[in-house]
């Protein structure tokens, strides 16, 4: 099997491509080759430039050059005033949104790479000065550039490999499954994110879990404790496997010392409160774990806080371990 991929970038930062280049075990060229993925053109990786690329695009838009997977990175800029002039595709004078509409009409699959292309992302933040949207979503509302009813030639909606940036493994595994013909509608979650990573929560495998269990909370950036109570962590609600699938050899946001901002979700860019601050009512965080009844959470939290071992209480507000676990000798094994 093989998969011919055309990759376009619009109103994003190129970060999803830069993240993709960090693919490991095996590296990116080996992964693509092994999966039979052929890059028809990629703006950072291909030699072809200028006229060669304009010819390829024209052929793809006319349905004459087969594109198996159209990958779009970055949000789609419809402004100013619906003209698309905030992003004319260089050398063509034609808005990129127009190229995407034309090529998507023929592609077997269309993928939004990263939260910008999926939902609008950070580029759609604030007053959204560029009228940015995703391929098939505008924030959490279906629609976007291609419309809620859009289905690619293979009958699928736009596949949203959301994340800011997206993890290299999320992209290579999605493309590899498409190349094998093994990714269908049932493999996408309600926001059309591949369930291969979206059926997990960032909370799963978080190294701060012991602090979470006892509600031993960090109070300031660089503390070791749980980041949920005070520093805005959304790991218990965020759909991604960041703490079980490492980033850059072993990292994740929470292991890096800062809160999960739920970057795989629509509208993460406008949480309605300062990032890294937990909004509370009567001292209780308003955004509790999605699948836990609030009353139970409050009851359990007060119990576990009462039972917090001194080791966790002290370590939670320090930037390194000040009290190590005690060795307890027991004859019962």
């Amino acid at each position, binding site marked *: 099997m093989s998969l011919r991929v055309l990759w376009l970038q619009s109103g994003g930062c190129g970060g999803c491509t830069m993240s993709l280049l960090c693919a490991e075990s095996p590296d990116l060229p080996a992964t693509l080759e092994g999966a039979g993925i052929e890059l028809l053109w990629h703006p950072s990786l291909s030699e072809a430039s200028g006229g060669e690329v304009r010819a390829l695009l024209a052929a793809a838009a006319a349905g004459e050059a087969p594109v198996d997977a159209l990958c779009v990175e970055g949000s789609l800029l419809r402004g100013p005033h619906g003209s698309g002039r*905030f992003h004319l595709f260089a050398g063509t004078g034609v808005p990129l949104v127009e190229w995407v509409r034309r090529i998507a009409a023929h592609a077997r699959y269309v993928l939004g790479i990263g939260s910008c292309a999926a939902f609008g992302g950070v580029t759609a933040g604030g007053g959204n000065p560029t009228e940015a949207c995703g391929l098939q979503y505008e924030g959490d509302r279906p629609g976007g550039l291609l419309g809620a009813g859009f289905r690619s030639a293979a009958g699928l909606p736009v596949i949203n490999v959301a994340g800011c940036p997206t993890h290299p493994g999320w992209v290579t595994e999605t493309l590899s499954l498409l190349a094998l013909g093994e990714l269908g509608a049932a493999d996408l979650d309600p926001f059309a994110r591949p369930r291969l990573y979206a059926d997990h929560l960032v909370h799963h495998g978080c190294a701060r879990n012991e602090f979470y269990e006892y509600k031993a909370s960090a109070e300031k950036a*660089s503390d070791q404790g749980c980041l949920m109570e005070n520093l805005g962590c959304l790991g218990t609600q965020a759909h991604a496997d960041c703490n079980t699938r490492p980033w850059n050899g072993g990292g994740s946001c929470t292991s890096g010392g800062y809160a999960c901002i739920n970057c795989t979700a629509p509208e993460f860019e406008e949480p309605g409160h300062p990032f890294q601050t937990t909004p509370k009512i009567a001292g209780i965080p308003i955004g509790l774990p999605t699948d836990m009844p609030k009353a139970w959470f409050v009851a359990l939290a007060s119990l576990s806080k009462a039972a917090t071992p001194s080791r966790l209480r002290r370590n939670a507000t320090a930037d390194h371990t000040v009290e190590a676990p005690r060795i307890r000798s027991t004859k019962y094994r």
Partner: protein
Amino acid sequence: MARITVGPFNRVEGDLEVHLDVEGDRVAGARVNSPLYRGFEQILQDKDPLDTLVIVPRICGICSVSQSAAAAAALAQAQGLEPPPNGELALNLLLACENLADHLTHFYLFFMPDFARPVYAGEPWFEAAAGRFRALTGSAGREALAARAQFLHLMGMLAGKWPHTLSLRPGGSTRPVEAQERVRLLAILAAFRRFLEHTLFGDALEAVAALDSDAALRTWTAQAPGRGDFRRFLAIADALGLERLGRAADRFMSYGSYPAGGERLFRAGVWDGSPRPLDPAAIAEDLSHSWMDGPAEPLHPAAGLTRPDADRAAAYSWCKAPRLGGAVVEVGALARQVVDGHPLVRELVAAGGGNVRNRVVARLLEIARVVPEMERWVRTLRPGAPFCHHAPRPEAAAGAGLVEAARGSLGHWLEVRGGRIHNYQIIAPTTWNFSPRDAGGTPGPLEQALVGAPVRAGETDPVAVQHIVRSFDPCMVCTVH
């Protein structure tokens, strides 16, 4: 005179279009356009000041840590904060890791593949260069990608992930280092050093950093022809005369970089044949040829405006035109090294100014100079001592964050009123290098560097133009933020 438009211009970060006036076989004039606008300065209005740490890295996926570092520095000034020694070292390590990874990406993935183009098929060096540097299939790209990914494990450990980390703070880093992690960091750096010494340089980093003249560089190249990709580049550069290609204004600026214990590894300043002090108050942005509404007089970024106007007459780019004391300046690794006073770079610039070869040489030299410093910074880390200082959110304050990204001088100017962002202005390195004309009609550095570039018969995407553009390692998404 013929007019040609070159684009899409790939293997640069972001979107770029170049309009050329061609007379005979030479470029007579150039206009540089970034045909993409996103509006981060507008998006930041009225946000919580600390939210900049989430938003500004997303300006750019290739230099997101640089954007974070500039924002953190601007906030630090606004909050009156200074990081503890560990925090300063951690911030240096993160910025250096990104900058060097950028230099590597640029050399192997963006710049060298042009020498595998069919236009060079008749050259004696072509077969070897194409096998090594061809995009996607060349042997070098694969080796470099693997080395880069492993080098970026430093980010995984010290910053959680890359790009778009949130670990950089006004008062240091959120990620303390434990004793055993310190030795892991040394192992990561040792592996990167091994790649550089074996594959890129074919020699010890210290030997490359010690090259102090053009003669020394030539002797070193001749000592072991073809050993290491740097020597392979120098041979091609000689064959093609890349030292005569892409000269701009020969006025260079650096904000200085990597503070440690009250000193900076690379000093700040201006170089126009002799060293001059840098006066950040003399920076102003001109809007005359930008799709931006605003006054005719250039404004200092602390009072700058970003109001897009796609219908503005005489405009041809989303990029503004920053000037220093009214003058065009070039920024980047070459500027950093000439301002800092590295003897090899001073001599190369004295002989040929800023040109395609010298820009690449400075970038690779910087890799050789900075990796040993990174090793020293890691050894200086003190596990158990603080990595981050803290202060309340500012209510009313202003601050500027001036850092050196891989591509050169990056400045953020922040004003806070009533606890919210009142104004936020950014001048990125490529904004300096790829600026359009100013009100006086003076072209920006790249526009100047393209004049005189050769155009071969029948070329619609002239390869010399590609070399010149890419010698700046442009980052267009930063340019138009």
